[in-house]
């Protein structure tokens, strides 16, 4: 097993909304081993983006880290001063945003923006930074002749590549990518994923990939962390998650997803209902109201995230029955019964 680069323990992040707190991430724990791509999946509002942003400590003004630790390379990111954190950004941890159009400044040439990072954060001289910018563009497959372009002259795919180039500029150890291909067409999406995977292997990077798309996870992620309503509900290697999930939510997600590889179209089964309101979360398992297997225990007592099988963490009271539940979960009628 590879060495752990990032270890998140019991992390909570709250947004202050009016006089109340919305706990967007609640007691989350997972590890990112060195040199792996870890997928962070879940529906909108599950806390995956908040979590990703917390890693670079770029969170909204009304958000605060409410406890827990993020051990990165011997330092706790949650406890670092802003100044020390700033020293880590770009150099050790970098970020690829969902919409690269919004992360590149429209009034500056792309080259200027890359050079700015290289000089400011990397302490390079101008000539050195120029050469590095060319190298970076070649690395992500953009003609370096386009460096002098403005962001609006780039296509969506090129902008996303430029954002990747920027993220890799100073050889970080960890790249946090927030839905980096969601807004892109399927062919460009595939090209970017291939590129990211290639660079990750070549440079030995660790990547956290936030996405709602389990086929993207299946395509590129070594491990997957499933979040639901602010909680980590399952965490294991991707093959295990797809083939032998222990959490009913993971089982449901797979049923809801169209599969081009299947022989027929089959029937997609939705998970009825919607996630709970995080201002006033239920006291038991947060998935209980939508779960076809929920018992009184689930509705009253919150399940803890435990290692149910070697290297397979799950937060479900009925994880030991998962093999049977998986079979039942395949029947669409199972999910229709939930009110």
């Amino acid at each position, binding site marked *: 097993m590879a060495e752990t680069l990032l270890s998140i323990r019991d992390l909570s992040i709250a947004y202050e909304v009016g006089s109340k707190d919305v706990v967007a991430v609640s007691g989350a724990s997972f590890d990112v081993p060195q040199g792996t791509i870890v997928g962070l999946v879940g529906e909108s509002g599950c806390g995956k983006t908040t979590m990703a942003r917390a890693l670079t400590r770029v969170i909204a003004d009304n958000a605060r880290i409410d406890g827990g630790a993020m051990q990165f390379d011997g330092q706790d990111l949650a406890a670092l001063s802003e100044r020390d954190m700033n020293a880590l950004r770009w150099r050790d941890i970098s970020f690829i945003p969902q919409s690269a159009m919004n992360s590149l400044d429209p009034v500056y040439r792309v080259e200027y923006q890359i050079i700015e990072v290289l000089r400011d954060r990397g302490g390079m001289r101008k000539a050195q930074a120029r050469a590095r910018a060319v190298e970076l563009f070649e690395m992500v497959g953009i003609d370096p002749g386009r460096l002098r372009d403005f962001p609006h002259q780039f296509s969506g795919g090129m902008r996303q590549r430029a954002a990747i180039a920027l993220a890799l500029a100073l050889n970080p150890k960890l790249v946090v990518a927030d839905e980096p291909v969601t807004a892109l067409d399927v062919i460009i999406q595939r090209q970017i994923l*291939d590129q990211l995977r290639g660079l990750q292997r070549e440079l030995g990077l660790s990547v956290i990939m936030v996405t709602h798309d389990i086929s993207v996870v299946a395509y590129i992620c070594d491990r997957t962390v499933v979040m639901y309503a602010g909680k980590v509900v399952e965490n294991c290697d991707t093959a295990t998650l797809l083939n032998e999930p222990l959490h009913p939510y993971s089982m449901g997600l797979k049923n*809801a997803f*169209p*599969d081009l590889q299947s022989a027929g179209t089959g029937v*997609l089964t939705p998970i009825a209902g919607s996630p709970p309101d995080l201002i006033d979360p239920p006291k038991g398992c947060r998935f209980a109201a939508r779960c076809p297997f929920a018992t009184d225990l689930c509705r009253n007592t919150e399940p803890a995230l435990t290692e149910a099988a070697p290297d397979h963490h799950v937060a479900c009271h009925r994880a030991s029955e998962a093999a049977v539940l998986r079979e039942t979960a395949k029947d669409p009628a199972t999910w229709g019964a939930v009110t």
Partner: protein
Amino acid sequence: MTVPLIQMENAQLHYKIGNAISAMMGLPATVKAVDGVNLTLNKGESVGLLGESGCGKTSMGRILVRLEEITGGSAQFDGQEIKDLSGDALQAFRSRSQMIFQNPFDAVNPRYSIRKTLEEPLANARIAQEEWQGRIVDVLELVGLGDPTQFLERFPHQLSGGQLQRVVMARALILKPEFVVADEPVSMLDVSVRAGVLNVFRDVRDRLGLTAIYISHDLALVRYVCDRTIVMYLGRIMEDGPTEDIVHAPLHPYSQALVAAVPTPHVDQSHDPLPIGGGAPDPRNPPSGCVFRDRCPRAQARCAEEIPLPRPIGTRRVACHFAEE
């Protein structure tokens, strides 16, 4: 007996762009959003329009519900030229053809209650007021918002995305149309609720015998909804045929790339490099001949000179000079 409902012949939608100065500089004056499309859609048939952004799939849908007017060729609905409709005929057409929009949060007026959202089309179509309540209850039932009393007085922000998309669907269906264009109706929704909306769409279409166009960039979704698929690229049809044939054995090199690019929820899927590179070219300046040729691994001299028109091959139409190879 198959009766055509939609017929397009050499349909074009060319947008004028630029101004006097760009014209003097010799820059192109039009973008060909839809160019030379032939399409027949029989009553009760549904077809998926598949392609990347800018391929003209949404423009096609908008032409067929007359949110855009063609600039050349012909586009007919039930034997009538859509762009020539006016007065009562247009009013009748508006009831018979409807569109379901992509983003439910943008498609409804946030200040209208669900009741008012659904009453508006009834008022526009001059349906007698006594009928309103019955129609509203029926249509909400149809889209799976079982207990209408629970939703009618609520406002859009009080509904989840999945519920709101069902309301948008209900609004499209309340005038009992024969033809519906759904423009990426689930792309804004979470995976866990997507399936529910897709199931309702399929179910309603089958129960009402609707003719439907389902627009998407996602082949897996199109496959779930439509037996027939049309692949578009830069305003032209590349391939048209049974969805399963296209999924399992695409003939056009562009369809082949699209199929290969779709990730699946399996760890053991192919990671082979795609047969094509780059992105779609600038639509203002498409390549001569075949619009796909500058990305095509099979392109030859002939492709630059002669536009390949969709021609029948087995169950399909394919616009490639070398489709048999």
